[in-house]
Protein backbone atom coordinates (compact mmCIF):
# COMPACT_ATOMS: atom_id res chain seq x y z
CA UNK A 1 0.00 0.00 0.00
CA UNK A 2 2.28 2.47 -1.07
CA UNK A 3 2.25 4.73 -4.02
CA UNK A 4 5.45 6.55 -3.24
CA UNK A 5 7.95 8.17 -5.50
CA UNK A 6 11.55 9.27 -5.04
CA UNK A 7 11.95 13.07 -5.04
CA UNK A 8 14.90 15.43 -4.73
CA UNK A 9 14.75 18.14 -2.07
CA UNK A 10 15.24 21.57 -3.66
CA UNK A 11 14.73 23.79 -0.63
CA UNK A 12 13.47 23.61 2.94
CA UNK A 13 11.42 26.06 4.97
CA UNK A 14 10.43 25.10 8.54
CA UNK A 15 9.02 21.60 8.30
CA UNK A 16 8.12 21.78 4.62
CA UNK A 17 10.31 21.07 1.63
CA UNK A 18 9.99 21.87 -2.04
CA UNK A 19 10.87 18.70 -3.92
CA UNK A 20 11.17 17.72 -7.54
CA UNK A 21 10.10 14.44 -9.07
CA UNK A 22 11.77 14.57 -12.46
CA UNK A 23 10.64 18.11 -13.07
CA UNK A 24 7.34 18.06 -11.23
CA UNK A 25 7.65 20.28 -8.18
CA UNK A 26 5.55 19.87 -5.08
CA UNK A 27 5.60 20.71 -1.42
CA UNK A 28 5.94 17.93 1.09
CA UNK A 29 6.07 17.79 4.84
CA UNK A 30 9.28 16.74 6.59
CA UNK A 31 7.49 16.01 9.86
CA UNK A 32 8.31 12.32 9.60
CA UNK A 33 12.03 12.54 8.83
CA UNK A 34 15.08 13.90 10.61
CA UNK A 35 18.03 15.85 9.27
CA UNK A 36 16.90 16.09 5.67
CA UNK A 37 18.81 18.62 3.60
CA UNK A 38 18.63 20.09 0.09
CA UNK A 39 20.04 17.63 -2.40
CA UNK A 40 18.80 14.60 -0.48
CA UNK A 41 16.43 12.20 -2.16
CA UNK A 42 13.34 11.30 -0.18
CA UNK A 43 10.49 8.89 -0.66
CA UNK A 44 7.26 10.87 -0.98
CA UNK A 45 3.82 9.51 -0.12
CA UNK A 46 0.63 11.56 0.06
CA UNK A 47 2.42 14.84 0.67
CA UNK A 48 4.91 13.55 3.25
CA UNK A 49 8.54 12.46 3.03
CA UNK A 50 8.73 8.97 4.53
CA UNK A 51 12.41 8.24 4.40
CA UNK A 52 15.66 9.68 3.13
CA UNK A 53 16.89 7.39 0.38
CA UNK A 54 20.39 6.06 0.66
CA UNK A 55 22.97 5.53 -2.01
CA UNK A 56 23.14 1.93 -1.02
CA UNK A 57 22.08 0.04 -4.00
CA UNK A 58 23.75 -3.22 -3.33
CA UNK A 59 21.26 -5.75 -2.15
CA UNK A 60 21.97 -9.20 -0.94
CA UNK A 61 20.70 -10.47 -4.24
CA UNK A 62 23.14 -8.30 -6.11
CA UNK A 63 26.01 -9.70 -4.07
CA UNK A 64 24.62 -13.15 -4.57
CA UNK A 65 24.42 -12.58 -8.27
CA UNK A 66 27.93 -11.26 -8.55
CA UNK A 67 29.11 -14.65 -7.37
CA UNK A 68 26.71 -16.59 -9.51
CA UNK A 69 26.09 -14.99 -12.84
CA UNK A 70 24.42 -17.13 -15.53
CA UNK A 71 27.82 -17.55 -17.11
CA UNK A 72 29.49 -19.07 -14.09
CA UNK A 73 29.75 -22.80 -13.74
Amino acid sequence: MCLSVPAKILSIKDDMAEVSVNGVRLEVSLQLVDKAKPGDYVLVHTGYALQILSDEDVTLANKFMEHESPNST
Partner: protein
Amino acid sequence: MTKMLTTQTYRDKKKIGEILEMIRKRSSKKIRLMEVCGGHTMAIHKFGIPGLLPKNVILKSGPGCPVCVSDQKFIDRAIAIARKEDVILTTFGDLIRVPGSTSSLEKERAKGCDIRIVYSSLDALKIARQNPEKRVVFLGIGFETTAPTSAATILKASKSKIDNFCLLSAHKIMPPAMEALAFDGIRIDGFIGPGHVSTITGSGIYQILADNHGIGCVISGFEPVDILQSILMLINQKEQGEPKVEIEYSRAVKPKGNEKAQRIMEEVFYLSDDCWRGFGDIPMSGLKIRKKYARWDAEKVLHVTVEKTRYKKGCICGEVLKGKKSPTECRLFKSACTPATPIGACMVSSEGACHAHYLYGNGKLL
Protein backbone atom coordinates in the same frame (compact mmCIF):
# COMPACT_ATOMS: atom_id res chain seq x y z
CA MET B 1 12.94 16.13 -23.11
CA THR B 2 10.53 13.58 -24.42
CA LYS B 3 11.70 10.12 -23.61
CA MET B 4 10.64 6.58 -24.07
CA LEU B 5 8.07 5.48 -21.54
CA THR B 6 10.58 3.87 -19.19
CA THR B 7 14.35 3.88 -19.14
CA GLN B 8 15.31 3.55 -15.52
CA THR B 9 17.95 1.23 -14.11
CA TYR B 10 15.45 -0.88 -12.24
CA ARG B 11 13.72 -1.61 -15.50
CA ASP B 12 16.87 -2.57 -17.35
CA LYS B 13 15.97 -5.41 -19.70
CA LYS B 14 19.38 -7.01 -19.59
CA LYS B 15 19.42 -7.20 -15.82
CA ILE B 16 15.91 -8.52 -15.83
CA GLY B 17 16.88 -11.20 -18.31
CA GLU B 18 19.75 -12.25 -16.03
CA ILE B 19 17.53 -12.47 -12.96
CA LEU B 20 14.88 -14.46 -14.85
CA GLU B 21 17.59 -16.85 -15.99
CA MET B 22 18.70 -17.29 -12.38
CA ILE B 23 15.09 -17.88 -11.32
CA ARG B 24 14.71 -20.58 -13.93
CA LYS B 25 17.97 -22.21 -12.92
CA ARG B 26 17.38 -22.13 -9.20
CA SER B 27 13.72 -23.05 -8.78
CA SER B 28 13.21 -26.76 -9.01
CA LYS B 29 9.96 -27.22 -7.10
CA LYS B 30 6.63 -25.44 -7.13
CA ILE B 31 6.82 -22.26 -5.06
CA ARG B 32 3.91 -20.12 -3.95
CA LEU B 33 4.70 -16.56 -3.09
CA MET B 34 2.26 -13.99 -1.78
CA GLU B 35 2.51 -10.25 -2.02
CA VAL B 36 0.63 -8.25 0.56
CA CYS B 37 0.89 -4.80 -0.86
CA GLY B 38 -1.45 -3.27 -3.37
CA GLY B 39 1.44 -1.44 -4.94
CA HIS B 40 3.03 -4.81 -5.66
CA THR B 41 -0.23 -6.20 -7.06
CA MET B 42 -0.34 -3.32 -9.51
CA ALA B 43 3.35 -3.38 -10.41
CA ILE B 44 3.37 -7.14 -11.01
CA HIS B 45 0.46 -6.89 -13.36
CA LYS B 46 1.50 -3.62 -14.98
CA PHE B 47 4.86 -5.01 -16.06
CA GLY B 48 3.44 -8.39 -17.07
CA ILE B 49 5.66 -10.25 -14.61
CA PRO B 50 3.56 -13.45 -14.18
CA GLY B 51 3.97 -14.25 -17.86
CA LEU B 52 7.75 -13.99 -17.61
CA LEU B 53 8.11 -16.43 -14.71
CA PRO B 54 8.48 -20.19 -15.09
CA LYS B 55 5.26 -22.13 -14.46
CA ASN B 56 6.39 -23.46 -11.09
CA VAL B 57 6.62 -19.96 -9.63
CA ILE B 58 3.13 -18.93 -8.58
CA LEU B 59 2.31 -15.44 -7.40
CA LYS B 60 -0.71 -14.94 -5.19
CA SER B 61 -2.24 -11.66 -4.16
CA GLY B 62 -2.98 -11.16 -0.47
CA PRO B 63 -4.66 -8.53 1.70
CA GLY B 64 -2.50 -5.63 0.60
CA CYS B 65 -5.21 -3.29 -0.48
CA PRO B 66 -6.34 -1.16 2.47
CA VAL B 67 -9.49 -0.19 0.62
CA CYS B 68 -10.39 -3.82 -0.05
CA VAL B 69 -9.90 -4.87 3.56
CA SER B 70 -11.89 -1.97 5.00
CA ASP B 71 -15.15 -3.32 6.21
CA GLN B 72 -18.25 -2.14 4.41
CA LYS B 73 -19.40 -0.47 7.65
CA PHE B 74 -16.64 2.08 7.19
CA ILE B 75 -18.06 3.21 3.85
CA ASP B 76 -21.58 3.27 5.27
CA ARG B 77 -20.34 5.48 8.11
CA ALA B 78 -18.49 7.76 5.70
CA ILE B 79 -21.67 8.13 3.66
CA ALA B 80 -23.72 8.95 6.75
CA ILE B 81 -21.16 11.61 7.67
CA ALA B 82 -21.06 13.07 4.14
CA ARG B 83 -24.83 13.51 4.24
CA LYS B 84 -24.58 15.96 7.13
CA GLU B 85 -25.23 19.54 6.08
CA ASP B 86 -22.17 21.17 7.56
CA VAL B 87 -19.64 18.51 6.55
CA ILE B 88 -17.01 18.55 3.83
CA LEU B 89 -15.85 14.98 3.41
CA THR B 90 -12.32 14.60 2.06
CA THR B 91 -10.87 11.35 0.83
CA PHE B 92 -8.22 9.73 -1.28
CA GLY B 93 -9.53 8.88 -4.74
CA ASP B 94 -9.33 5.17 -3.98
CA LEU B 95 -12.48 5.24 -1.84
CA ILE B 96 -14.79 7.18 -4.07
CA ARG B 97 -16.32 4.20 -5.88
CA VAL B 98 -16.18 1.57 -3.16
CA PRO B 99 -19.71 0.23 -2.72
CA GLY B 100 -21.32 0.54 0.67
CA SER B 101 -24.51 -1.31 1.56
CA THR B 102 -26.78 0.84 -0.59
CA SER B 103 -24.69 3.67 -2.01
CA SER B 104 -21.16 4.93 -2.57
CA LEU B 105 -19.36 8.23 -2.06
CA GLU B 106 -19.51 8.82 -5.79
CA LYS B 107 -23.27 8.44 -5.83
CA GLU B 108 -23.60 10.69 -2.80
CA ARG B 109 -21.49 13.33 -4.53
CA ALA B 110 -23.84 13.15 -7.50
CA LYS B 111 -26.71 13.78 -5.10
CA GLY B 112 -25.05 16.95 -3.87
CA CYS B 113 -22.92 15.97 -0.86
CA ASP B 114 -19.69 17.93 -0.55
CA ILE B 115 -17.17 15.17 -1.12
CA ARG B 116 -13.70 16.12 -2.33
CA ILE B 117 -10.77 14.06 -3.49
CA VAL B 118 -7.44 15.11 -2.02
CA TYR B 119 -3.89 13.92 -2.59
CA SER B 120 -2.80 14.43 1.01
CA SER B 121 -4.35 14.72 4.49
CA LEU B 122 -2.56 18.08 4.62
CA ASP B 123 -4.81 19.27 1.77
CA ALA B 124 -7.79 18.30 3.91
CA LEU B 125 -6.35 20.35 6.76
CA LYS B 126 -5.98 23.28 4.39
CA ILE B 127 -9.64 22.95 3.40
CA ALA B 128 -10.54 23.01 7.09
CA ARG B 129 -8.54 26.19 7.59
CA GLN B 130 -10.27 27.80 4.64
CA ASN B 131 -13.78 26.76 5.73
CA PRO B 132 -14.01 27.46 9.47
CA GLU B 133 -17.78 27.22 9.49
CA LYS B 134 -17.71 23.65 8.17
CA ARG B 135 -16.53 20.43 9.70
CA VAL B 136 -13.92 18.79 7.50
CA VAL B 137 -13.67 15.04 7.85
CA PHE B 138 -10.78 13.10 6.36
CA LEU B 139 -11.08 9.37 5.71
CA GLY B 140 -7.94 7.73 7.02
CA ILE B 141 -7.23 4.49 5.22
CA GLY B 142 -3.95 2.76 4.71
CA PHE B 143 -1.43 0.68 6.54
CA GLU B 144 1.79 1.75 8.18
CA THR B 145 2.84 3.78 5.16
CA THR B 146 -0.07 6.17 5.45
CA ALA B 147 -0.96 5.97 9.13
CA PRO B 148 2.02 8.12 10.21
CA THR B 149 0.99 10.80 7.73
CA SER B 150 -2.48 10.92 9.28
CA ALA B 151 -0.92 11.05 12.73
CA ALA B 152 1.35 13.91 11.68
CA THR B 153 -1.61 15.81 10.26
CA ILE B 154 -3.51 15.43 13.53
CA LEU B 155 -0.48 16.76 15.39
CA LYS B 156 -0.36 19.69 13.02
CA ALA B 157 -4.09 20.33 13.51
CA SER B 158 -3.55 20.25 17.24
CA LYS B 159 -0.57 22.60 17.10
CA SER B 160 -2.33 25.03 14.77
CA LYS B 161 -5.57 24.74 16.77
CA ILE B 162 -7.62 23.78 13.73
CA ASP B 163 -10.55 22.26 15.55
CA ASN B 164 -12.92 21.81 12.64
CA PHE B 165 -10.72 19.07 11.16
CA CYS B 166 -11.16 15.43 12.16
CA LEU B 167 -10.13 12.00 10.99
CA LEU B 168 -12.20 8.84 10.64
CA SER B 169 -9.63 6.14 11.08
CA ALA B 170 -9.72 2.82 9.29
CA HIS B 171 -5.94 2.53 9.50
CA LYS B 172 -4.63 -0.98 10.05
CA ILE B 173 -1.30 -2.67 10.54
CA MET B 174 0.00 -5.48 8.39
CA PRO B 175 1.62 -8.19 10.53
CA PRO B 176 -1.55 -9.50 12.28
CA ALA B 177 -3.16 -10.11 8.90
CA MET B 178 -0.07 -11.88 7.63
CA GLU B 179 -0.08 -14.04 10.76
CA ALA B 180 -3.78 -14.69 10.38
CA LEU B 181 -3.07 -16.03 6.91
CA ALA B 182 -0.41 -18.33 8.30
CA PHE B 183 -2.77 -19.56 11.03
CA ASP B 184 -5.48 -20.03 8.45
CA GLY B 185 -3.32 -22.73 6.89
CA ILE B 186 -2.78 -20.80 3.73
CA ARG B 187 -0.11 -22.52 1.66
CA ILE B 188 2.55 -19.95 1.02
CA ASP B 189 6.26 -20.53 0.78
CA GLY B 190 7.19 -16.91 1.24
CA PHE B 191 5.98 -13.34 1.38
CA ILE B 192 7.05 -10.57 -0.94
CA GLY B 193 7.17 -8.00 1.83
CA PRO B 194 5.54 -4.58 1.58
CA GLY B 195 8.27 -2.14 0.62
CA HIS B 196 6.86 1.16 1.77
CA VAL B 197 5.15 -0.12 4.91
CA SER B 198 8.60 -1.41 5.84
CA THR B 199 10.31 1.94 5.37
CA ILE B 200 8.30 2.94 8.42
CA THR B 201 8.20 -0.29 10.42
CA GLY B 202 11.57 -1.79 9.61
CA SER B 203 12.06 -5.50 9.03
CA GLY B 204 11.78 -6.97 12.52
CA ILE B 205 7.98 -7.20 12.46
CA TYR B 206 8.10 -10.10 10.00
CA GLN B 207 10.48 -12.23 12.06
CA ILE B 208 7.60 -14.00 13.78
CA LEU B 209 6.46 -15.37 10.42
CA ALA B 210 9.82 -16.95 9.73
CA ASP B 211 10.35 -18.16 13.31
CA ASN B 212 6.87 -19.46 14.14
CA HIS B 213 5.51 -20.40 10.74
CA GLY B 214 8.54 -21.09 8.58
CA ILE B 215 7.48 -18.48 6.07
CA GLY B 216 10.25 -16.20 4.88
CA CYS B 217 9.82 -12.61 3.84
CA VAL B 218 11.84 -10.52 1.41
CA ILE B 219 11.00 -6.83 1.59
CA SER B 220 10.75 -5.68 -1.99
CA GLY B 221 10.79 -2.43 -3.93
CA PHE B 222 8.35 -1.78 -6.73
CA GLU B 223 10.36 -1.79 -9.88
CA PRO B 224 10.64 -4.97 -11.97
CA VAL B 225 14.25 -5.58 -10.93
CA ASP B 226 13.20 -5.25 -7.28
CA ILE B 227 10.30 -7.66 -7.57
CA LEU B 228 12.23 -10.25 -9.56
CA GLN B 229 15.23 -10.02 -7.25
CA SER B 230 12.95 -10.57 -4.28
CA ILE B 231 11.40 -13.60 -5.96
CA LEU B 232 14.88 -14.96 -6.57
CA MET B 233 15.84 -14.42 -2.94
CA LEU B 234 12.69 -16.24 -1.76
CA ILE B 235 13.39 -19.13 -4.12
CA ASN B 236 16.85 -19.30 -2.69
CA GLN B 237 15.47 -19.43 0.85
CA LYS B 238 13.15 -22.26 -0.10
CA GLU B 239 15.85 -24.24 -1.87
CA GLN B 240 18.10 -23.90 1.16
CA GLY B 241 15.27 -24.56 3.62
CA GLU B 242 16.08 -21.29 5.41
CA PRO B 243 13.07 -19.04 5.83
CA LYS B 244 14.21 -15.62 7.03
CA VAL B 245 13.56 -11.93 6.74
CA GLU B 246 15.64 -10.09 4.17
CA ILE B 247 15.62 -6.60 2.73
CA GLU B 248 15.87 -6.31 -1.05
CA TYR B 249 14.74 -2.67 -1.01
CA SER B 250 17.78 -1.51 0.93
CA ARG B 251 17.81 1.94 -0.65
CA ALA B 252 14.61 2.76 1.23
CA VAL B 253 14.24 0.24 4.05
CA LYS B 254 16.44 0.18 7.14
CA PRO B 255 16.18 -2.73 9.59
CA LYS B 256 14.88 -0.39 12.31
CA GLY B 257 12.65 1.52 9.91
CA ASN B 258 11.78 5.17 10.51
CA GLU B 259 11.78 5.55 14.28
CA LYS B 260 10.55 9.13 14.23
CA ALA B 261 7.49 8.12 12.23
CA GLN B 262 6.94 5.18 14.59
CA ARG B 263 6.98 7.55 17.58
CA ILE B 264 4.49 9.87 15.92
CA MET B 265 2.17 6.96 15.22
CA GLU B 266 2.50 5.80 18.79
CA GLU B 267 1.72 9.31 20.07
CA VAL B 268 -1.56 9.60 18.19
CA PHE B 269 -2.83 6.05 17.73
CA TYR B 270 -3.36 2.98 19.88
CA LEU B 271 -3.90 -0.59 18.74
CA SER B 272 -7.35 -2.05 18.85
CA ASP B 273 -9.21 -5.06 17.52
CA ASP B 274 -10.50 -4.38 14.05
CA CYS B 275 -12.74 -5.96 11.47
CA TRP B 276 -11.11 -6.85 8.14
CA ARG B 277 -13.25 -7.66 5.15
CA GLY B 278 -12.74 -11.31 4.38
CA PHE B 279 -11.04 -12.05 7.69
CA GLY B 280 -13.51 -10.93 10.27
CA ASP B 281 -12.09 -9.57 13.50
CA ILE B 282 -8.33 -9.57 13.89
CA PRO B 283 -7.10 -8.66 17.38
CA MET B 284 -4.84 -5.62 17.79
CA SER B 285 -4.75 -4.85 14.11
CA GLY B 286 -6.50 -1.51 13.84
CA LEU B 287 -5.34 1.98 14.77
CA LYS B 288 -7.67 4.18 16.81
CA ILE B 289 -7.06 7.75 17.92
CA ARG B 290 -5.98 8.24 21.54
CA LYS B 291 -8.19 10.12 23.99
CA LYS B 292 -5.67 12.96 24.06
CA TYR B 293 -6.61 13.72 20.45
CA ALA B 294 -10.31 12.94 20.73
CA ARG B 295 -11.09 16.42 19.44
CA TRP B 296 -9.79 15.30 16.03
CA ASP B 297 -11.44 11.89 16.09
CA ALA B 298 -14.48 11.83 13.84
CA GLU B 299 -15.88 8.85 15.75
CA LYS B 300 -15.98 10.97 18.92
CA VAL B 301 -17.06 14.34 17.58
CA LEU B 302 -19.64 13.26 15.02
CA HIS B 303 -22.77 11.38 15.87
CA VAL B 304 -24.41 9.73 12.94
CA THR B 305 -26.87 6.94 12.40
CA VAL B 306 -25.35 4.36 10.16
CA GLU B 307 -27.57 2.04 8.15
CA LYS B 308 -27.47 -1.68 8.79
CA THR B 309 -24.62 -3.28 6.89
CA ARG B 310 -25.75 -5.49 4.05
CA TYR B 311 -23.15 -7.62 2.32
CA LYS B 312 -23.49 -8.50 -1.35
CA LYS B 313 -24.40 -12.10 -2.22
CA GLY B 314 -22.00 -14.07 -4.32
CA CYS B 315 -19.05 -11.82 -3.63
CA ILE B 316 -15.94 -13.80 -2.66
CA CYS B 317 -13.67 -10.83 -2.02
CA GLY B 318 -12.79 -12.34 1.31
CA GLU B 319 -11.44 -15.52 -0.30
CA VAL B 320 -9.62 -13.52 -2.95
CA LEU B 321 -8.06 -11.30 -0.31
CA LYS B 322 -6.76 -14.34 1.54
CA GLY B 323 -5.26 -15.62 -1.66
CA LYS B 324 -7.45 -18.72 -1.45
CA LYS B 325 -9.27 -18.02 -4.66
CA SER B 326 -8.27 -16.10 -7.74
CA PRO B 327 -10.54 -13.45 -9.28
CA THR B 328 -11.41 -15.73 -12.18
CA GLU B 329 -12.90 -18.23 -9.76
CA CYS B 330 -15.55 -15.73 -8.73
CA ARG B 331 -18.74 -16.26 -10.71
CA LEU B 332 -19.42 -12.53 -10.63
CA PHE B 333 -16.02 -11.58 -12.09
CA LYS B 334 -16.35 -9.71 -15.39
CA SER B 335 -20.07 -10.41 -15.59
CA ALA B 336 -21.96 -8.64 -12.83
CA CYS B 337 -18.79 -7.35 -11.23
CA THR B 338 -16.65 -5.00 -13.33
CA PRO B 339 -14.80 -1.77 -12.50
CA ALA B 340 -17.80 0.18 -13.79
CA THR B 341 -20.29 -1.91 -11.81
CA PRO B 342 -18.32 -3.28 -8.89
CA ILE B 343 -19.88 -5.55 -6.33
CA GLY B 344 -16.96 -5.86 -3.95
CA ALA B 345 -14.09 -3.62 -3.04
CA CYS B 346 -11.53 -5.88 -4.73
CA MET B 347 -12.93 -4.69 -8.04
CA VAL B 348 -13.42 -1.07 -7.22
CA SER B 349 -10.11 -0.40 -5.65
CA SER B 350 -7.55 0.27 -8.34
CA GLU B 351 -5.12 -1.98 -6.53
CA GLY B 352 -7.58 -4.72 -5.66
CA ALA B 353 -6.67 -8.12 -7.04
CA CYS B 354 -9.82 -8.30 -9.13
CA HIS B 355 -9.34 -4.86 -10.59
CA ALA B 356 -5.71 -5.47 -11.42
CA HIS B 357 -6.64 -8.78 -12.98
CA TYR B 358 -9.45 -7.17 -14.98
CA LEU B 359 -7.18 -4.44 -16.30
CA TYR B 360 -4.05 -6.38 -16.88
CA GLY B 361 -5.17 -9.92 -17.57
CA ASN B 362 -3.27 -12.67 -15.89
CA GLY B 363 -0.04 -12.07 -17.73
CA LYS B 364 -0.02 -15.57 -19.11
CA LEU B 365 -1.52 -14.60 -22.36
CA LEU B 366 -3.11 -16.52 -25.05
